[in-house]
């Protein structure tokens, strides 16, 4: 029985990253209508930044370093996102959507090799924060505190985004753009600046997710590709542009993966994808889509 609690909690842990990544993807997709193929690379940037910071100063105060790392990951990924949007994506607004996809794909390739240039091809481990936090017992199993920490951070970010979107002026403007771009423009909302902001936000969320993962998984080249696909699956499952959809989608995918690994350890991605496809066959707009 207690095994199941552990599986469920593992699923929640996995869902936390998914949630952050897919929320970011969903914001960009909702506000700008662009599917950001470079999203996984922004995740990877976050992972490398955080892992590097934690490892760079020896074994001292790993928790503080990790917190710094989280913030740095958020910041760097966000800045890279802003740079991407202003330099590459903006000129593409007037062009067909396919060109925007191509540009983000080009960015993906660029960033992957940039990471290689900066950090080389080795793996960056940052497990200190994980071990330092220790475990607690669930029945006869040990469950890491770090997992709870990650879930809390993720929840905090989610609540933060929700509050920005519903309470602040900027958030409401962002939402109105995602609902009806022409109308928003007609009402005088500055689409350009808000687009940049949305992209930056989405990128920062991806970077944060990447940073959160390094205590359990080393930062490696290509670490961002699976999160990209999974985030996409979540967004498609949960329905476009919906925070609730991202949340529920992440939970479904997270738990399915966690339980699936127990029975079919090899089939991770294909299994998840199969489930997503089945749902899409019956409901092409996703579970909560518009």
């Amino acid at each position, binding site marked *: 029985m207690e095994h199941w609690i552990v599986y469920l909690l593992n699923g929640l842990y996995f869902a936390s990253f998914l949630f952050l990544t897919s929320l970011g993807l969903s914001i960009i997709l909702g506000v700008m*209508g662009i*599917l950001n*193929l470079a999203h996984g690379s922004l995740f990877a940037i976050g992972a490398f930044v955080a892992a590097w910071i934690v490892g760079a100063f020896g074994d001292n105060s790993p928790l503080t370093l990790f917190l710094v790392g989280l913030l740095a990951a958020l910041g760097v990924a966000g800045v890279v996102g802003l740079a991407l949007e202003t330099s*590459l994506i903006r*000129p*593409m607004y007037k*062009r067909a*959507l*396919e*060109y925007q*996809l*191509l*540009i983000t*794909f*080009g*960015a*993906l*390739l*660029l*960033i*992957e*090799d*940039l990471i*290689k*240039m900066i950090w080389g091809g080795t793996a960056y481990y940052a497990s200190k924060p994980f071990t330092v936090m220790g475990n607690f017992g669930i029945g006869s199993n040990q469950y890491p505190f770090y997992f709870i920490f990650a879930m809390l951070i993720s929840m905090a970010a989610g609540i933060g985004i929700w509050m920005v979107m519903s309470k602040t002026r900027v958030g409401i403007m962002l939402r109105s753009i995602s609902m009806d771009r022409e109308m928003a423009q007609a009402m005088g909302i500055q689409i350009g600046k808000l687009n940049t902001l949305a992209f930056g936000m989405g990128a920062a969320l991806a970077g944060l997710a990447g940073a959160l993962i390094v205590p359990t998984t080393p930062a490696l080249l290509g670490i961002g*590709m*699976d999160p990209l*696909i999974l985030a*996409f*699956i979540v967004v*498609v499952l949960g329905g476009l542009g919906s925070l609730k959809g991202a949340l529920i989608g992440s939970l479904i995918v997270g738990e399915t993966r966690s339980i699936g690994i127990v029975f079919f350890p*090899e*089939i*991770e*991605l*294909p299994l998840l*994808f199969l489930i997503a*496809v089945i749902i*899409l*066959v019956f409901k*092409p707009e996703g579970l909560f889509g518009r």
Partner: protein
Amino acid sequence: MGVKNAILKPKFLVYLGCFILLLFIPRVLPVYHLILFESGITFAIMALGFNLLLRYTGLLSFGHGALFAVGAYAVGMTGKYFPELYRIEILIPVALLASFVVSAIFGFICVRHTRVFFSILALALSMVLFALLVKLYNITGGSDGIHIELPVMFGKSFEGMKRFEFLSGAYYYLLICVFAAATIIMFAIVNSPFGKALQSIRDNEVRAEMIGIRVRRYRLYAFILSGLFTGLGGAMWSFVNGHVTPEIAEWVFSGEIVYMTLLGGFMVFEGPIIGAILFTYLRLYAVSITQYWMFLIGATLIILVLLLPEGITGGFVKLVSKMRRAPSTGVAQC
């Protein structure tokens, strides 16, 4: 205007000329370059298939590497499990059949969605195939892949021959014929009423549905046709490369397919062919001077999209039409 008239058109003569030239290439190129060129030709077949979707149906697929892999692995697995059937006359149809099945499945899933979702859904499906190819190592050889033996061609066995001899001899001519046939068939498809219907779907799917074209169904047909060509390219490539590994199903190769099509120019029918052949040489050259190959493709892709979105042939076409218009009288009319 009949077939006779068409044959005498200048463009047709140019193509005929190119075909004849191609027949002489083995005498001109050193073996190493010849094999590279053959690689390029197999990519060209694949790129033709890819562009049917991109240019003529308006769908951008980031997962075509998987379809290429299906053709290649069809050859490999037949060799591994049914060595008695390892003849080229059987291998090509088998590869086409496998491509048909997988494209039908992929296509059915992908075409029901908007164009943007289509692109990344194709990417996701290709990643699934990649994962399966790697993890089911008992069947597929995993990340080691499968070695490709020289096939029996029309009754003649090449056992014992070195691969480069095989490739610079009989196989080259077979490949050129397959390439010519593929080009002719694709040309026919693109200009047929079916091709026109695809283009109307690309231009305005609402209106296309309104004039009685079932959009989803024809997109699926286009996807399957595209997959057939791509798989054929993969199968022909497997003999050239001698080995098939899961990497060809990965996203990087799918991205290279997009890249080479864009490089050559997707607006012109011949563009992808030129892009594919050019790309094979470019890649070899670039890999020899830097390890940051993805950075190069990424950067040049961005430059292409920003400055020369219609690729080399597109730029060429623009240049030609500018030159045609250039001689204008500078004298004002009184």
